[in-house]
Each structure stands twice: as C-alpha cells, then as structure tokens.
C-alpha cells in the first residue's frame, strides 16, 4: 500500500514536472528521458561483463531505420519506432557472430570498429542514408487527442509524455528481465563463465541475447530521438556521445538497476541546468572529462554506492551484494 502511494506520487510528479519548466528545459527533459533508456539498456549488456563502444551507433541504427521506414515506405510512426528497435536488435544478432569471438578488451575494440564501419557506411552512401548531412525532415509523430489532452508532438511536453510512457514500459521490461532467471544467468555468465557453462548455460546464446535486447531498446531510444529532432546524421551518434553514455554509467555505477539512471539524471542536471545557465558551455567536455576521472579514482563504485550507504543504515538486510566491477 505504501509502495503504491509512493509510486502514484512519483507518477504525478513526473506528469506535473514539465509544467514548471521553461521551453528549453522541457526539451532537455525529452532528451533526458531517451538517454535514460539508452543508458539502462547499456547496463543490461554490462550484466554479462562485456563493455561495448558501439552502443550509440546501434541506437543510431534504430534512428536511421525508423526514419527510413516512415520516409521510404510510409509506415505509421509508432509502428516504425518499434520496427527501428527490432532492426537494431537483428543487426546486433548479426554483429554478434564476429564480435562474440572476442572478450573483454578485444570485444571493446571490436565493437568500436563495427560501430565506426556502420557510421562510415552512413557517410559514404548518400542513398538511402543521406551521406554526411544525414536524413532531414523525418516525419514527426502524428498528433492525436485523448479527450482530456491534445497531443501536439512539436510541443516538447507532449513528446515528453509519449517518450516517457514508452521508456517506462521499456524500463519495466528491462527490470523484469534482470529480476528473472534469465538475469541471474547473465550474472552467472559475467562472474564465472566456465562454471555457468558447466551448468549447461550456452554462453554464446546468452551473450547474444543480452546484446540483442540491449541493442533493441537502444534502437527504440534512437527512433524516439529521430522523430523528435527530425534530422539525424552520422555525427549525431559519434564516439563523443558514446563517451557520455559511458560516463553516466560509470558515475552512476552499474551494480544496480538505478545506478546508471542516477548517473544520467545527475550529470544532465549538472550539465544543462548548472553549466549551461552559468555559461560554461565551452568547457563542457573538460568538466565531463574531469568528472569521469575523479569518479573513477575516488568513487569507483559510482553514485549508487553512496545511495546504498545511506539506505543500508536504515535497512541493513537490503544489500543485494551485486557490486559494480569497473
């Protein structure tokens, strides 16, 4: 009962949130929502112990696919967003054949190379990817009304509600997967792959499964982004964005479900509200870099470890014991 009340209060707060913000802050809220999905899906991959540097490009695959589905085939936007995610997941399955011959550092570099190849293909082939300038004039989400509220998707508030609902469903699914025997198997693959294999776990299949799910949700995130901003190009998904995702995950910590989300929210608030308002726009990468270094040096388990410390005083039996290995 108490949990339900907290949940309802949270939902009301999230619905009311944009109305207290300026237009540009509302826009940031939309991006933040999408980024939360991006970083949470990234965490699912890290559950199996693999760190990819191609996740943002995979997100871009979802964005390009959904943009092209609507543009070239006239598919209804909500459907094409879903198809964008499916395309990204299928591509991940294909990529898993070369990539999962490698582990650890080699996987990291391999995923980076695969991502760069995809980005260069977008750059090189004007048809259908639009070359370096990318795709412009992507169909927006068609407006509709649900009686009490008219959705106009050029308005960030409307798009925030839409993406918020989609992301909430996706996060719920990710949460269910992590808390299931499948999630336990992901952990097993991470910590002792040989013992997991001796227990009958097909390592390749589970690594591929995690990669495909993570990529699928990243693809949905990319598609949501594409239909909001209306224009995408290869540089929207370059390594710099990947570094941001990595920073969110590391600053937040990857040991818990909420860790990366926490990192994403805290750094976005710091970045957009504090730095931008204070006019430090140009120093953004510098400050991000410094935060990355300081947090890996002095807080290697992320913000979540701070949260855990606070809460463990109240409820000592609540420790999950799954720590971030960074």
């Amino acid at each position, binding site marked *: 009962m108490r949990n339900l009340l907290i949940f309802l209060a949270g939902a009301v707060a999230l619905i009311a949130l944009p109305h207290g913000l300026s237009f540009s802050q509302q826009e940031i809220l939309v991006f933040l929502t999408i980024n939360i999905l991006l970083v949470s899906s990234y965490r699912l991959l890290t559950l199996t112990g693999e*760190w990819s540097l191609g996740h943002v490009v995979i997100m871009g695959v979802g964005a390009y696919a959904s943009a092209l589905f609507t543009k070239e085939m006239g598919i209804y936007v909500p459907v094409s967003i879903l198809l964008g995610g499916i395309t990204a997941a299928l591509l991940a399955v294909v990529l898993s054949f*070369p990539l999962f*011959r*490698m*582990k*650890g*550092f*080699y996987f*990291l*570099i*391999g995923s*980076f*190379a*695969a991502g*760069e*190849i995809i980005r*260069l*293909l977008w*750059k*090189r082939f004007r048809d259908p990817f639009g070359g370096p300038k990318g795709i412009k004039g992507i169909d927006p989400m068609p407006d509709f009304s649900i009686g009490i509220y008219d959705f106009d998707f050029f308005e960030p508030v409307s798009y925030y509600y839409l993406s918020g609902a989609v992301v909430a469903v996706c996060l719920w699914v990710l949460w269910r997967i992590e808390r299931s025997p499948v999630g336990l198997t992901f952990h097993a693959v991470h910590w002792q792959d040989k013992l997991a294999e001796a227990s009958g776990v097909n390592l390749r299949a589970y690594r591929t499964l995690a990669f495909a799910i993570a990529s699928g949700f990243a693809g949905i995130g990319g598609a949501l982004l594409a239909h909001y901003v209306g224009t995408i190009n290869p540089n929207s998904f370059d*390594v710099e964005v990947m*570094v941001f995702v*990595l*920073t969110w995950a*590391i600053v937040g910590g990857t040991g818990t479900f909420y860790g990366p989300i926490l990192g994403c929210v805290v750094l976005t608030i710091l970045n957009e509200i504090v730095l931008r308002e204070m006019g430090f726009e*140009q*120093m*953004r*990468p*510098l400050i*991000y*870099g*410094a*935060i*990355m*270094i300081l947090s*890996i*040096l002095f807080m*290697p388990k992320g913000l979540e470890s701070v949260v855990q410390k606070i809460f463990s005083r109240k409820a000592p039996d609540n420790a999950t014991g799954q720590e971030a290995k*960074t």
Partner: protein
Amino acid sequence: MLDLLAQTGLNAVYAASYISLIAVGLVLIFGVMGVVNFAHGELYMAGAYAVVLLYTDFQIPFFLAVAVGMIFVGCLGLAMERALFRPLRDNPLGGLVASIGFLMILQSLAVMGFGVRMEHIPPVTQHVIEFSERVRLPLSRLFVIIAAVVLLSALWIFLKRTRFGWALRAAAQDPEAAALQGISINQTARIAMFIGAGLAGIAGALTAPLVSVNPHMGHSVIVTAFIVIIVGGVGSLEGAIVASVAYAFVHTFVTTFFDGVIADITGLSLMLLVLIVKPTGLFGSADRA
C-alpha cells in the same frame, strides 16, 4: 600509371612512418602498464599544437620546437602515469575510462586555447625531392620518415641492449615476476609512458605543417592506431611496425584509387577480420586482456 604507383608508394611510406611512431608508443604503454591509452591521439595533437605555439607564434626554430614538443608531451605522459594509471593499476577498465576523461580534457583545452579553427603553419621548407616529373617527395615528409627510422631503431637498441630496456621487456612479459626480480614497476611505467607519449608527440610535431591541426585531429589517428595494434597483435612492437606499413599501403592505395571513406571502411573491416580469425593479432601470442 607507373608514376602514380610510385608516388602512391612514397605517400604510403610517409604514412607508415608517422603511424608506426604513434602505434609503437601505444603498444609500449599497453605492454608495460596493461592499459589502453585512449588519449594517445590527443597526445599526438598536443605535439602538433606545441609546434603551432612555439614555431608559428614564438618564431622558435622548427627543430627546436619539435624537440621541446616531444619533451613536453613526454611529460604529459608522466603526469598521466602518476595521476591516472598508477592509482588504477589493478583496474584496466578504470585506466581506459580515465584516459578517455583525459582525452576530453586535452581536447577542450585545445579548443579553449586555440579555437576550433584549423591552424595554418608556415611551411618549414619548400624544398621537394623530384624523382621524376610526377614522382616527388617534399622534404618535410622526408623528415618524418627519417625521424621514424632513427627513433624506432634507437628504441629497438634501447630495448635490446640496455638494462632499462631489459627491465621494460621483463615488466611487459610478467609484471609480478619482474617485481620479484627487483624491477620497480613505477620506474618502468614512467619510462614506458615517457617514451610512448614522446613518440606520439614527435609524430604530431613533425606532421603539424603537413596536416590540418585542429582539436579533433586525434580521433582519426587513434582509430588508425587501434587498427594497427590489433592487426599487429596487442603488445607486439614488431607487429605494430609491420601492421603500420601494411595498413599505410592498403589505406593509401585504396584512397588513391577509390576514396578516403572506402579506405577507412577497408581498414576497419580488415581489423575485424583479423580479430575474427586470430583475436590475438598476427604477431600476438600472450593473452593479456
């Protein structure tokens, strides 16, 4: 046609020279410290900006500027070792993340100090060696080739003939055993980091008049260096040199006969292929990652 082949070959030799300077430094750092230095491209950039500042702005003689640039970047490497890699020695992913953070700091310092525009550096020499009417090698490119040959040979002798070199190789092979032999890990890490960064710095300093110097020039360089060290086998200096030459030739010829993007795709695809067939690289044997 023969002229074109010869000219492209010369271009490839030049490319192989500066790529191998960068890749060998990266391999040295990885071998001794076990950390992937993502900021290596930005060390190269720092070398180039050192020349911009000293040679273009302060009118210091070019070769003096290059030497100062190399030592400056070497010291940057020492700072990285002390501040980042030493505290994170037992945490390879942490070292990698920290180096990405350092990359962003260097990059934005360059943006703040020099702006995002490309720097124009007055040519050091207009002299061009003409082999025939259409096969020519600018002298400033020859400097890069000579520097690569001299420095890499010197490094080779240092590693094989001196006590420090022996310690470095021992540390690269088995850090724990080396520590038991009384080799200081901190000492070898400092040497490796100084040499590795210094090589990247001199590559940047020497090529500064030949390329467009801008804050983002490190990106394509680090991608190239990664391809090279993966193909050559992570941790193998010989492999890095051989792979640099091979990559430079493939990339230069594909660029000449098709275009640059296709050449990049070819390079990356070749690397993926090597990773699939022999994940430890052509010359690699020990699995350290």
